[in-house]
């Protein structure tokens, strides 16, 4: 960075002192592809003298090679960092830029405007204090402008700059400016944005970027840089109740047990009464430890280590909070979700949810509605696709501590993670806990699984058959059940076709319905295993995630996955039910292996090659496995 302050040369120590106490402002720029967003940021860096000679030289060379400004400096090229972007002339991801003036340090999240990358905008907005929304003066308020504004408001940014750009192209017309401003303010009010400053700009020519422009004498507001340098952003986290997610339990030796984390709300003092959540146990703060000495007080933003006066059990993922104003705890919520994956959301599929330092299992109910981000209409939805936003109920497999997102971003915002690919597939904002999660308790039953097993004289187990239609699952399951029955073992066979006649007759064959189909069967199998039975489940069950769900529902060692491994062409040749012919004709949609995927098991307990193994031998293989693992013996 080439810095401008005269102090640098005259009194460097004083300059450093003032620089250290300069505040930081993080802002996001949003605009459509051609609004001149990159040009604006490039212009700001240039005007703030943040470019070095070698960077300028590279820019000049690039402008001649790739530029769109007829050989003039093309500031957009400063920013479009990746080759892939240069070739396509678009920005494909969030980029962070840094600059500083004498008054402030800035981090800009530069995010692309086109529809398929909404997730990037939400990502950039999640850490921003202010949003700069660009409008092309020739085009006015577009659908994209509404979308960007809605996302900004959803994420909780309150301060908005409407940068009405390319004003030079409309002859610096005040009339155009006023019309756009009025239209925008009317719209913004509907979505709760009211702290708005509208600035007439030409990023290309530099009007009102850092200096008031002679071309817009009718405008008396701040320049863009002037606004960004002075806008007051209250740090809401500082004023909220004390919160610290425990990241790491610090145990250098037997005498020291500390809890390391970052304060994400309020402040904490030595002696303060705290509560650990979700356990609810209380203690007081003994010491606030840092390598630079113990502190009397720590505030939001600081990374510290706490020691307590009582030995209470706290582990990674727990939340330490003030006992005076603790957060809620619950395992069912209503939340706004932003879906970020190419794969649609499946209601009922088990995903992971990370909030603070805690990761838990979660299933999502069918959305109550999704939001058309262009019109803000609520629409009925069965699922969410990439870049869609919806309101959903969540069901967690553990209780967590939380605050509503509107009160604390760090204890109310979460991400969703796919269990198999580990990708981040969505983000969400907790609204409130569902009351039923506080009222429905798990009924403790005294005649438990052990008692059932003791009476039966064998252990329970779920034997899960998976494979293509026509692979021989039902045939083998049938024989296995007969053999087990003959051995005096208590069994039940759940067959895909049969269950679809009753329990699941409301479900079709879309991916979402198949997920729900398996979820229900897995739950039924779990109940039957609880009753002490050996449950044979014969379902195509094409997705790993749902088989994983079924496995996770029962105890370790009580699940036996049987992969009936018949190549597709062999199953299709057999075609015992004539379904493949129908599917090939196109009369049967979403048929596994034809137009719907099958994900083979990676670690099945038993794999049966039906080309070389007769059904009777296959059944023996399974019974052999159950015998080896001790299922068939008395517990």
């Amino acid at each position, binding site marked *: 960075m080439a810095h401008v302050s005269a102090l640098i040369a005259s009194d460097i120590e004083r300059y450093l002192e003032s620089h250290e106490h300069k505040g930081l402002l993080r802002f996001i720029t949003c605009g459509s592809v051609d609004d001149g967003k990159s040009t604006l940021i490039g212009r700001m860096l240039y005007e703030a003298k943040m470019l070095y*000679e070698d*960077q300028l030289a590279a820019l000049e060379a690039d402008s001649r090679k790739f530029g769109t400004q007829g050989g003039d400096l093309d500031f957009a090229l400063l920013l479009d960092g990746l080759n892939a972007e240069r070739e396509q002339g678009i920005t*494909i991801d969030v980029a962070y830029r840094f600059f500083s003036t004498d008054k402030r340090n800035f981090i800009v999240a530069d995010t692309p405007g086109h529809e398929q990358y909404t997730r990037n905008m939400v990502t950039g907005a999640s850490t921003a204090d202010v949003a700069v929304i660009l409008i092309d003066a020739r085009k006015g308020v577009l659908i994209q402008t509404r979308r960007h504004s809605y996302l900004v408001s959803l994420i909780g940014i309150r301060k908005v700059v409407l940068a009405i750009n390319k004003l030079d192209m409309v002859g610096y017309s005040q009339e155009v400016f006023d019309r756009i401003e009025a239209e925008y303010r009317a719209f913004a009010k509907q979505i709760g944005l009211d702290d708005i400053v509208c600035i007439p700009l030409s990023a290309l020519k530099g009007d009102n970027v850092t200096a008031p422009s002679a071309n817009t004498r009718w405008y008396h507001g701040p320049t863009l840089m002037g606004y960004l340098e002075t806008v007051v952003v209250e740090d809401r986290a500082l004023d909220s109740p004390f919160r610290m997610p425990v990241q790491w339990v610090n145990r250098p030796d037997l005498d020291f047990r500390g809890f390391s984390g970052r304060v994400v709300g309020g402040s904490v003092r030595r002696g303060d009464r705290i509560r650990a959540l979700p356990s609810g146990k209380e203690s007081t703060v003994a010491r606030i430890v840092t390598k630079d000495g113990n502190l009397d007080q720590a505030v939001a933003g600081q990374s510290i280590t706490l020691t307590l006066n009582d030995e209470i059990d706290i582990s990674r993922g727990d939340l330490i909070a003030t006992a005076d104003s603790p957060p809620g705890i619950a395992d069912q919520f209503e939340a706004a979700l932003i879906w970020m994956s190419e794969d649609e959301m499946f209601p009922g599929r088990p995903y992971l949810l990370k909030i603070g330092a805690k990761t838990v299992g979660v299933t999502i109910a069918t959305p109550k509605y999704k939001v058309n981000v262009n019109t803000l209409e609520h629409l009925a939805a069965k699922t969410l696709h990439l870049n869609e936003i919806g309101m959903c109920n969540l069901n967690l497999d553990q209780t967590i501590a939380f605050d509503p997102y509107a009160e604390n971003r760090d204890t109310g915002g979460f991400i969703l993670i796919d269990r198999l690919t580990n990708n981040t597939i969505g983000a969400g904002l907790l609204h409130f806990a569902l009351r039923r999660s506080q009222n429905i308790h798990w009924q403790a039953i005294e005649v438990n699984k052990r008692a059932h097993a003791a009476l039966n004289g064998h252990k329970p187990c779920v034997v899960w058959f998976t494979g293509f239609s026509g692979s021989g699952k039902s045939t083998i399951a049938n024989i296995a059940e007969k053999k087990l029955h003959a051995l005096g073992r208590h069994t039940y066979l759940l067959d895909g076709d049969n269950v679809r006649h009753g329990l699941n007759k409301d479900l079709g064959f879309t991916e979402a319905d198949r997920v729900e189909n398996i979820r229900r069967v897995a739950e039924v199998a779990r109940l039957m295993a609880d009753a002490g039975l050996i449950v044979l489940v014969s379902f195509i069950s094409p997705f790993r995630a749902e088989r994983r769900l079924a496995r996770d529902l029962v105890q370790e060692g009580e699940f036996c996955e049987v992969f009936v491994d018949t190549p597709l062409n062999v199953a299709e040749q057999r075609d015992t039910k004539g379904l493949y012919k129908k599917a090939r004709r196109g009369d049967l949609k979403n048929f596994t292996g034809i137009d719907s995927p099958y994900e083979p098991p990676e670690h099945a307990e038993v794999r049966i090659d039906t080309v070389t193994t007769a059904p009777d031998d296959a059944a023996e293989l399974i019974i052999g496995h159950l015998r080896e693992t001790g299922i068939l013996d008395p517990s």
Partner: protein
Amino acid sequence: MIPLTHLERLEAESIDIMREAVSESERPVMLYSIGKDSSVMLHIAMKAFFPSRPPFPLLHVDTTWKFREMIEFRGKMIRQLGLDLIVHINPEALAMGINPFTHGSAVHTDIWKTQGLKQALDKHGFDAAFGGARRDEEKSRAKERIFSFRSTQHRWDPKLQRPELWRLYNARKNKGESMRVFPLSNWTELDIWQYIHREQIPIVPLYFSKERPVVERDGALIMVDDERMPLAPGEQPMMRKVRFRTLGCYPLTGAVESEADTLIAIIQEMLLARTSERQGRVIDHDSTGSMEKKKQEGYF
């Protein structure tokens, strides 16, 4: 209540990132390149886990072409802090005698550094590696996540990066895959120097100006650090007052003429400078987008 200063906030964020990475990985390691950014990263690591020691070793991917003073400094720091250091020297590069003079900077960097790093990570089974890269350094860095996912082949795919929201880092991965973690992502060069100044962090003396023997190569001043530097017939190293803005392999690192022999003078010089710090690095200039390409191949 007094809000944190800019540097306090950056430090707290870096600590947060390190603790999170350590908690979510099985075998973390810190890449230690001996430069100023590594020195800052190491200093913060000592704070992040205090009173425990950082629960990971340091790894230096050595190329045998580093400045001698860097290697001395490395030894001194490790002894002082009592940390474990793994030095990895790519045995194939050693056997082939890879060097910047005969093989050029691209081949040299790829085999010694990129391949060497991958070897070391595989050999020790590290699944999370801290690096000192900053987003303000280079255009492709500006788009990198703080927790950057790498495939089993250590590849970076800029189009398949995980969205990173708020302060929530997704560090989950399958066996064989890994994370590169950049705790200094949001620091600028000035922040780094200012922090070194505030915290009195030791750095390699090469950053300070001194009379050193140099020769001029393609417009860059290259220090003659040992006898392996080939000289043209009749060529004599000249003594010049120079210092280095970044450190790497000595034949690939250009010196700048400077009088700055104190930290404050360095900062002043940097603030008044007309060129960026990476300009002294030969490896960035190979072709447009060269960093992006190297990163995809597994470079840090």
